[in-house]
């Protein structure tokens, strides 16, 4: 295998890793704020893709408007889910809440199938088709666009947490809910905000993922890889999601290129198991100390 091929494979891996990272950030956001492991993240992503299709192909809106509306739909869904399903479960065991999100995922898949059928569909083309060459290495234009979009959104998030009031409120809530309450932070609002933001992000990621590979009710399995990403990075670490996303993207691409496509999932999950043995809370996760 020559160096050029290796470079191309790694570029493709980093490209898809950026989408993992973006979805991973959405996942971490929810976990940080509300301690909910949202297994429906893949399905929310899927819904984003379908919403885009509905706005762009169904209503004939231009791609940009459809993208914005898809993101807004994701946000609305996040708000709805938080208020109707997650809020009533406050204080229940984490396992129950996690099962609620599994149920939610199932409901979303069913709704999408009811509306659009079970067949895979393609989003209208809205991305440039001219190939991108970095040096001599080829990079699929869609993957390049996906990478740039993901990088911009993640950078915006990082800036938000660092510099805005609500970002600080989020960090405070994540650190200690009780303390956050006592200094006057509206914790329920932080919860809502986190869900809205995260689901909007996931929906946006869904449009990117759907533009690259098409959409289908089963594209929620993307969430499975995202799960690996956030567990490897540490459930409550944004940096972890970034590193984990790129790492998993790379590993999958390399495994696909040198072992064969069927090895992708098994390699990442084996990596996950090994890592769990060594660092049970991921690369950057907080180790919680339990007290009686």
């Amino acid at each position, binding site marked *: 295998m020559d160096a050029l*091929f290796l470079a*191309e*494979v790694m570029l*493709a*891996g980093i*490209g*898809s890793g950026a989408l993992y990272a973006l979805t991973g950030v959405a996942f971490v956001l929810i976990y940080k704020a509300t301690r909910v492991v949202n297994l429906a993240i893949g399905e929310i992503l899927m819904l984003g893709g379908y919403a885009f299709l509905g706005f762009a192909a169904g209503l004939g809106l231009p791609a940009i408007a459809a993208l914005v509306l898809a993101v807004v739909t994701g946000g609305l869904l996040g708000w709805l889910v938080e208020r109707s399903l997650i809020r009533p479960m406050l204080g229940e065991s984490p396992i129950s809440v996690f099962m609620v999100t599994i149920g939610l995922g199932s409901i979303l898949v069913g709704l999408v199938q009811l509306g659009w*059928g*079970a*067949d*895979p*569909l*393609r989003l209208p*083309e809205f991305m440039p*088709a*001219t*190939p991108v060459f970095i040096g001599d290495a*080829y990079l*699929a*234009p869609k*993957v390049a666009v996906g990478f740039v979009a993901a990088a911009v959104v993640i950078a915006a998030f990082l800036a938000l947490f660092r510099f805005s009031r609500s970002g600080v409120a989020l960090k405070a809530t994540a650190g200690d809910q009780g303390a956050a309450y006592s200094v006057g932070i509206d914790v329920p609002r932080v919860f809502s905000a986190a869900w809205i933001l995260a689901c909007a992000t996931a929906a946006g990621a869904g449009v990117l*993922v759907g533009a*690259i*590979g*098409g959409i*289908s009710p*089963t*594209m929620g*399995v*993307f969430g499975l890889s995202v799960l690996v990403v956030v567990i490897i990075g540490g459930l409550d670490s944004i940096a972890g999601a970034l590193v984990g996303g790129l790492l998993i993207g790379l590993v*999958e*691409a390399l495994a*696909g*290129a040198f072992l*064969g*496509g*069927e090895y*992708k*999932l098994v390699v990442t999950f084996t990596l996950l198991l090994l890592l769990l043995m060594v660092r049970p809370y991921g690369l950057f996760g907080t180790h919680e100390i339990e007290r009686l």
Partner: protein
Amino acid sequence: MTAFEPNRRRIIAGTAAAAGAMAFGFGRASAQAGAPIVLGGSIPLTGVFAFAGIGIHAGIQDYLKILNDGGGIKGRPVKYVAEDTAYKVDASVAAFNKINSQEKVSLYYGDSTGFAKTINSELDRRGTMIMAGASFATELNDPKKYPLQFMAGPDYTEMFGILLRYIAKEKPGARVAFVYSDTEFGRDPIVLGEALAKELKLAVVEKIVTPPGSVDVSTEVLKLRRANPDFTIFHGYVLAPIPEFITQAKQMGMRSAFMGTFWTMDNSTVQRMGDAAEGFMGVMPYRYYYDRDGSAPMLDRIRQMRPDYQSTGYLQGFVTAMLLTEAAKRTLDAGKDLTGPNLKAGLNSIKDFDTGGLFGVPISIPGNSVPVGRIYRFDAKAKQMQPASDWIKL
């Protein structure tokens, strides 16, 4: 199962029948002359295979309507009893059990390879029916192991054979790549297909496996470009990720022709590939709904009954129902009972049979498959798959 078991069972069941057997629907229709012949079906009306299942369902119904309007088989109508399976094996088995507990079934349509394998020993044990279905798995094309089953077309390996023969004729010594999904469906023809390619002096330069349900194929496309094939055959998919594969490959300036197998070949499926569809080829055992070359009285009938385009699934269901009932007709003509082995013998007696033009050539069924097909190529201007070769008989 020995003969002893059902007997004992019937006796006990008889005594207990008063205790509410009727509530569970134990009644069985007896097979008198004039009584309907039953075609049962485990049909995937919902789920991932619904796009084909809905067509299959309509195709079977339409053919039986034509048959019954013409007086049925020797005065006996054919009754169609179907259940939805959502393309799940356990649901298919449940449907099979349910239909068989309510009707005396002679012909059956099964929806998947898994179901065909699961139910095979039960078919042998009952010995009362023959089955065909949506699976073209190579494994099923073995009259010894699957004596009471068949498929209304070439098996997947034979489809590869037809494609490879076409390639060998178009460009002797061509470089060929296989792209297939990591499923039973995808892996089916690969090993035998590669051997056949060697026989035809074609070079298989790359075999790419994609994980099921994968959407991101950028790495795989890179591999494909390295291999630089003249022809790329996709198998084990319906649509995704074929369009993305082709789009990216074309963007990279690849010159390969792209090909698919039966379940990808529906005209509306290929149309959904968008720009990637141009020049897409594949193997098809039947004529398309809109084909007007040659005489095809049965297609004319279909176009009369259904003014709109009908899918390849529809044609598959239609043809399957035709062959199943033809087997029943030949069995009754020979003055034999409708048992599984008799029906299969009737089916195998089909020789140079005219399907009303649905298959482009007269067909024979010496074993479990009908190894006939033609290469079609998508014409973006006409938005249709157009014939690219003559009918190829293996």
